[in-house]
């Protein structure tokens, strides 16, 4: 790990100024991904701006919604009474991630910004366009069992591993950002990028921009929700495939639905067409299967991840069954 300058920020604007002016500087909050990547030499910031003391950790109800500070810890958010009452899907997704220790360190902002766990990205001896643009994609013809089935490009087939983000994209969250040019808001679905020709860019944050909070509008999804995470171990492992579902059911008819897949693409994968296929339908397995079929349109597998073509729709159906029975 290279030497770096370490400074502690006490005001957001000061932190932003440093990082905006210095392309080799990075914010550090929980560090659970950044420290890992620095140990492996995958990321080599020359300066770290510790933002842990910034006043950005509050969770509060506001007009028609919940505002969660970017520095709120994953475990704090998952245990928060307001979150559990108003957005239980978020709590479920958070608790499905990592381990209790990591959830006590990881922040909301850090969770969104965590990078792929693709082993070619991690291995400095392997080609990786995300890590070193122009070197190629080792996973394309390599071992790609954990990789994307949606939205991939020939430059990168990595997936975004966050569980929390799958729930947030399903819940139509908004990301609040503070930067050198001021404040802005970004729909959660527009925060993460597709790889396209620029896989080195995970998100649409500009240089020096700092996530300050996430807002989730109040909704009717307080009962029939489920986060289904399929992985090779019962716990503490990244998903092969995951599904976040939320249903508003009245008289066994689906009034509204939110669906999203995790670990199938470079970004959390909202399933708008499948949601529409559910609205007005009875909450039955037949409806769920039809929605799953719609959800899988456009899916494309690689040599080792064709199992996801079956696993993903089955996971979605399973999640829907569990959610509707709640």
């Amino acid at each position, binding site marked *: *790990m*290279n*030497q770096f300058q370490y400074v502690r920020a006490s005001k957001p604007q000061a932190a932003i100024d440093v990082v905006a002016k210095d392309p080799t500087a990075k914010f550090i909050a929980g560090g659970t991904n950044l420290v890992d990547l620095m*140990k492996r*030499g995958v990321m080599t910031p020359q300066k770290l701006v510790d933002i842990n003391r910034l006043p950005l950790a509050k969770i509060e109800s506001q007009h028609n919604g919940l505002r969660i500070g970017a520095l709120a810890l994953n475990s704090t958010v998952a245990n928060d009474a307001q979150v559990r009452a108003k957005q239980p899907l978020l709590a479920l997704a958070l608790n499905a991630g990592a381990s209790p220790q990591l959830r006590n360190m990881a922040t909301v902002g850090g969770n969104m910004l965590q990078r792929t766990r693709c082993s070619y990205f991690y291995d400095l*001896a392997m080609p990786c366009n995300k890590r070193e643009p122009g070197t190629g994609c080792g996973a394309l013809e390599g071992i790609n069992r954990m990789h994307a089935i949606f939205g991939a490009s020939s430059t990168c087939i990595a997936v975004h591993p966050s569980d929390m983000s799958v729930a947030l994209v399903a819940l139509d969250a908004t990301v609040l950002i503070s930067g050198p040019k001021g404040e802005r808001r970004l729909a959660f679905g527009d925060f993460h990028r597709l790889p396209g020709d620029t896989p080195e860019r995970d998100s649409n944050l500009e240089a020096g921009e700092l996530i300050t909070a996430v807002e989730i509008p109040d909704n009717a999804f307080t009962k029939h929700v489920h986060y289904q995470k399929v992985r090779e171990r019962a716990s503490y492992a990244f998903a092969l495939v995951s599904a976040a579902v939320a249903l508003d059911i009245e008289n066994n008819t689906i009034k509204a639905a939110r669906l999203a897949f995790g670990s199938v693409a470079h970004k959390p994968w909202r399933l708008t067409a499948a949601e529409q296929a559910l609205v007005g339908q009875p909450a039955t397995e037949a409806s769920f299967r039809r929605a799953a079929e719609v959800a899988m349109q456009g899916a494309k597998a690689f040599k080792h991840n064709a199992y996801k073509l079956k696993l993903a729709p089955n996971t979605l159906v399973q999640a829907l069954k569990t959610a509707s029975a709640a």
Partner: protein
Amino acid sequence: MKTQDKHIGGSMSRVDGYLKVTGGARYSAEYELPGMTYGVLVGSTIAKGRITSIDTKAAERAPGVLAVITHLNSPKVPGFKPTGKDPSQPQTVGGPLKVFHDEKVLFNDQPIALVVADTFERARHAARLIKAQYAKETHQTDLEASATQAFLPTQAKKNPKSPMADYQRGQADAYKSASLKIEQEYVIPNEMHSPMEMQSITAHWEAPDRLTLYDKTQGTMGTRRDFAKEWNLPEENVKVIATFVGGAFGNALHSWPHESAAVIGAKVVNRPLKLMLTREQMFTMVGYRPYTWQKVGMSATPDGKITAISHDSIGQTSTYEEFTESTLAQTRMMYTSPNLTTRYRLAALDVSTPIWMRGPGEATGAFALESAMDEMAHLLKLDPLEFRLRNYTDQDPEKNRPWSTKFLKECYQLGADRIGWKNRKLEPGAVREGDWLLGYGMGVGTFGAHRGSAHVSAQLLPNGHVVLQCATTDIGPGTGTAMTQIAADTLGIDPSHITF
């Protein structure tokens, strides 16, 4: 003095429990020595070829770096004398890897450099600054692709009675001409030991000819022998301390390149050197249960008497060392069969050498044999337990000797009773419980319980306490506690007065 077994077989809290639950147990990277330095290894990024150049200048200039050792500047290790008469063969034929010995790369992540610095962070950083260039050669790491080059291990060539030699009773491959037969292939991948403690060593040259190692090893005597040989030292000049070992499961039963590297590094800087492998390195340079491809052919009479078994096994090994294990031992003695053929072969691949892992050999072979037994039982429409009982050996068919004791039948009965084996349905997939398919299965394993002599020194103190000392290790099974129980019963002294 014989006393009633009060403690042997009974329960006793582990004698090292207090140390383990308070963080007081010291493992090999946890000793404080003045002037301690830190070692970090750099591994090759090709599996086969030669290092054509290695640039260590930036690493050497990095803060805190005391030495950077490669094949270009490594001190001559006396025990690394050239072997083999053929100069074109790697100098490491038939033995452990000789680290930093020459420019040859024999497996991916082979240690090609050691950085020694005054802090771990400085050593780790400097290691990243080292750049190697290679003349890469085509590597072969696919066992099945190399099957045609599989060979009989040297020890079998030299000794036809070796457990690795081909075995034959009755007619070779007799199953082939039978009407009721199965023929199946079984593959196991490499299996890593992955103990919680990453391999660690603290090497300290207390004098130019006196070496002390705090080493993660399962055999302190073996490690002592290895390093005495490596440095041409009398064994009594080498001290090996392994008071606590954080799991090993077999991977600390061999001396590995990182140990040699640490000893070399400590000699070069003339200060104690601490080296802990990374978790990634635990997958590449401390052994593993080898990938093994097996073929089993079996035939039986319609009433379930086995007439022939053929069991072939090809396991991988490195190009520089032959690793063998008793994969086919169980097949030769477990079931009656007038015709039995076993053939054990090795495939030398561009990998690091495997090592014994939890029931090495027999576990691998049992998987194939027992699966084959189940498949044969299925063909015969016989209950798998009944099939095994019909082919039960009352004496060792390989050595033609009665067993000293064999209680397998009793085990079968006990096990069958306890899990309700009689409820088993012959047809697979016949029982459902919600989303789950339920079934009963069985397998038999065997492993050699070899015994040898051991030396323990005992001191009876004036206060009636006993101190026992033995150069053994405890990787977790509770050796210290078991020995205390044995001593307590043998000497008739309370365990709380015994220190092992």
